[in-house]
Structures are given as structure tokens and as C-alpha cells.
């Protein structure tokens, strides 16, 4: 029964949502709106569940002294500080349990949560993403080799798009007269992005769409059961 009841619910809800897309009138339209409302409530709880899970996983890793367990302590401490600051003093728009003292506001300029978010988290987060530039540079140098006709094509396209998608492209080929503007790097880059790229992307999207339909049907019909957990 532990598996059959969720499967029956999935079948009924899935079928109802599909039917309501084709018959958006009563009672199907109203039912699908109600179900969407339920989904929003459940997804809110999923966030809390995710946070609890994060806490649990980190504590287990520290307890078992897994490799680099010290980093999990930092993660837990940072997490707890943010949660405490948010609950105690609130955020920019939400009040907390305690009143924010004027001295605190004058010193930080923001509430503690917003201060940490703005001056720690934002910069750390942007730094992590920026590191990609360094690894991409190193990877491009090693990977973009004209070993075969296909890789040569990829290499040429990559260089043209890289030049065309920056201001260098306009500077290098801006002198080309308008009658030959198709030779300007930004135009070449736009052409590559608009036609070959779009064609490839569309093919991927159509395949992915068909895949989603297939796997959704498998879930609704109870063929795919991995979401229920267990074996």
C-alpha cells in the first residue's frame, strides 16, 4: 500500500492536469487551479525540508570525519549565522524577533542579514562564478585543436563568436563598408548564433520535449517508480 497509494494519487492528479489543459472548464479548470495552489504550498515546505536535509548531511559528514570534514563545519556555521540573523533581526523588508538598534544600523548600514548577504555572500558567489573564466581559458587552450575537420569547424566558429560577441569584433572590422557588412565580425557571430546554433538548439529542445512527454507518461502510468524511493 505504501507504493500503491502514491501511484494512484500520481495517476489521478497527472490525468486531471492533462485533461484540464484540453478542457479548461468546470470542474477541470477549477480543480487544476486548486492543485496548483497545493503545489505552491508543498514546494514551500520542500525548502524547509531541503534546509533540514542540508543540516543533517553536514552533521553526518562531520561525525564520520569524511575527507575535508572541516569545510562542512564552516558550511554549518555560516548557515546557522544567516538563519539566526534572519530570525533575530529580520531582513530589509521583514521584521525579526528583536528590534534593530540604531547603533547597529549606523555601524553596518544594513540589518545584519542584509549586511552579510551584500558584503560576504554576493562577493563570494560572484567570485566562484568568475573563476570559470580562468578554467575556461585553460580548457580552451587545451581542447580547441584542429585535429579533424569537425574540430576545425568548431574552433573557427568559437573564435569568430568570441571575437564577434565582444567589443573587439566591432573595433577590428568596423572599417568594412556597409555594402560588405556581412564580413563584420559581430554580423558573422550573429549569423552563427541565429542559424547553425538555433538549428542545433531546436533539435535538442524537440528531443528533450519528447523525452519529457515520455518520462511523464511513464510516471503517470506507474511504469517509472524511482520517485517513490527504494529499489
Amino acid at each position: 500500500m505504501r507504493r500503491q497509494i502514491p501511484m494512484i494519487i500520481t495517476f489521478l492528479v497527472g490525468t486531471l492536469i492533462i485533461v484540464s489543459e484540453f478542457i479548461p472548464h468546470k470542474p477541470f479548470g477549477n480543480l487544476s487551479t486548486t492543485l496548483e495552489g497545493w503545489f505552491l504550498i508543498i514546494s514551500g515546505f520542500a525548502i524547509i525540508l531541503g534546509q533540514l536535509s542540508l543540516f543533517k548531511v553536514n552533521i553526518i559528514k562531520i561525525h564520520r570525519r569524511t575527507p575535508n570534514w572541516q569545510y562542512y563545519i564552516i558550511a554549518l556555521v555560516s548557515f546557522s549565522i544567516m538563519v539566526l540573523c534572519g530570525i533575530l533581526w529580520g531582513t530589509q523588508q521583514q521584521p525579526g524577533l528583536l528590534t534593530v538598534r540604531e547603533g547597529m544600523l549606523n555601524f553596518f548600514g544594513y540589518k545584519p542579514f542584509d549586511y552579510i548577504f551584500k558584503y560576504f555572500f554576493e562577493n563570494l558567489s560572484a567570485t566562484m562564478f568568475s573563476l570559470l573564466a580562468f578554467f575556461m581559458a585553460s580548457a580552451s587552450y587545451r581542447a580547441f585543436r584542429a585535429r579533424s575537420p569537425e574540430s576545425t569547424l568548431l574552433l573557427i566558429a568559437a573564435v569568430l563568436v568570441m571575437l564577434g560577441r565582444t567589443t573587439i569584433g566591432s573595433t577590428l572590422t568596423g572599417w568594412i563598408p556597409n555594402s560588405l557588412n556581412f564580413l563584420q565580425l559581430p554580423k558573422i557571430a550573429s549569423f552563427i548564433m541565429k542559424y547553425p546554433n538555433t538549428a542545433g538548439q531546436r533539435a535538442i529542445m524537440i528531443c528533450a520535449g519528447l523525452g519529457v512527454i515520455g518520462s511523464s507518461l511513464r510516471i503517470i502510468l506507474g511504469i517509472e517508480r524511482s520517485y517513490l524511493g527504494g529499489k
Partner: protein
Amino acid sequence: MKIFERFLTIDRRIIFLLIFIGVALPLIFMITFNLEVTENVQSVYELLQEMEPGTRILISFDYDPSTKPEIQPMAIALLQQAFTNRLRVITTALWPMGVQMCNEAYETVSAEYPDIEYGIDFINLGYKSGGMVTINHMAKDFRSTFPADAGGVPIDDFPIMKGIKNFDKIGCMISLSAGDPGLKQWVMIVHDTFNKPVAGGTTAVQAPTMLPYVNEQRQLIGLLGGLKGAAEFELLVKKPGFATKGMGAQSIAHLIIILFIVIGNIGYFVTRKQQDTIKSKKP
């Protein structure tokens, strides 16, 4: 000929160092280059220009601080254009940290527009989990999806929300998106189901995946792609900001990458030729 072999095995730390210098120097010395506005960016600009003053537009902040350098300049420039044209802006977020991104963009822009009032010309409805289902629910019952703004004040208290029950009274929708949920979901619901104009801004990495939506059916009216898209938009609104400054650094970084690709390929061809010659000489 050993030099060509070295071309193939350049220490990655040298690449990292040159990229660092290439990014830092243009930012320090404010090196900029000419910029051309592309069609996709022009379309977004024209979409907002064509809106009547007082029209309510919806902007969704579907990104977090990791992509702030690329997307935040778009948010600022969009708000600048909207407030200059007296458009009223309703904002939401499908990403939890989009709320803070929205607050920061509004703080930056509101200083330039002292006559803009929160609740009349602008509102931040905050974050709602659920992705595509949230958008679908907004289309059917906006007020139950967002009963209050990000500060918990009921939306009925704000004149900007008067009469908003679904997307009917929204002029257009713009999603500033760094992934999923984001622009794709807004296109699927707001344009494809309710036929409202949708435009967007994404990271440069995500832009190629969104370009198929800029098509004859105008699923996407236009697209701001990465820092360049943001810089072009700043050029159009005549308020050069962080994106314009950052383009110099990005251009030099791209040049350095291309330079290393060329060096790597020269090394590859010369050493391959040598190996071929040695092989052909062997009996």
C-alpha cells in the same frame, strides 16, 4: 624546434596570470571599445519605448548573486528606461535571492528618480517557489499567488496592483534569468498561453539556448545576452554603467584566450609535421 613543443605544454598558471592581468588592467584604467547595438537588444528597447506611460510591466528577477555582474546591469538599465518612460514596474522572483537583487537594483535607480514612489510606480512582490506552476497560477489567480508584497503588506494597499487579477493588464513581461526556472518558463506560459509580449536577459552561457525563442512567432521579442547585451542596452538608454566598463575587460580576456588557442594550434601543427617527417624517413 623545442619552442613549438613548449607551445603545447604552457603551464596553466601562466594562462591564469595573463587572464587576471587582462581582466584587471582594463577595469583599473577604464579601457573601452566601440560597441554596436544588435537587433535582439534593440527589440527589447523598442518594446518598452512603445509602451504607453502608466502601463504596468512585469519584471522577474530569476537569478542570484553569482550572475550579478552580468545580469544586474540589465536590471538597472531596464528600470531606468521604465521609469524614464513613466512605466509602472511590478517585480517578482522565481529564485529566492532574486528578491535582494531586485531591492538593490531599485535602490540604485530610485536615487536618480526621486518622484518614483513604492507602491505606485514600483512594487517588489518577492519570491515564490514552484517555478512554472507559480507562473501558471499567477495567470489564473494573481492575487492568491501573491497576496502580499515582499514586506508582507497586502497588495490591495498598493495602487499599482489595482485591477491586476491575471496577465490581462500587464503590458509586457521581462525575465532576467540565469537558469531554471526562468525565461523559458515565462515564454511558455505568458506568451505561448496568454499571448503577452515577453523579453528577457540571460547570462552569455544561457543565451544560445534561448535564441530559438526569438523567432517569427515572436515568442521572445528580444534578448539581452550576457554582459555585451547589458552594455548595448546601457548604450541605448544613454546611461553607461558597469556593463560598459566591464566590456573592455571581457574583450581583452577573449583576446588572450584566442591568442592561447592560436599558440596551441601552431605548436600542434609544427610538432605533428615533425612527427610525420620522422615517420616517413623510417624504413
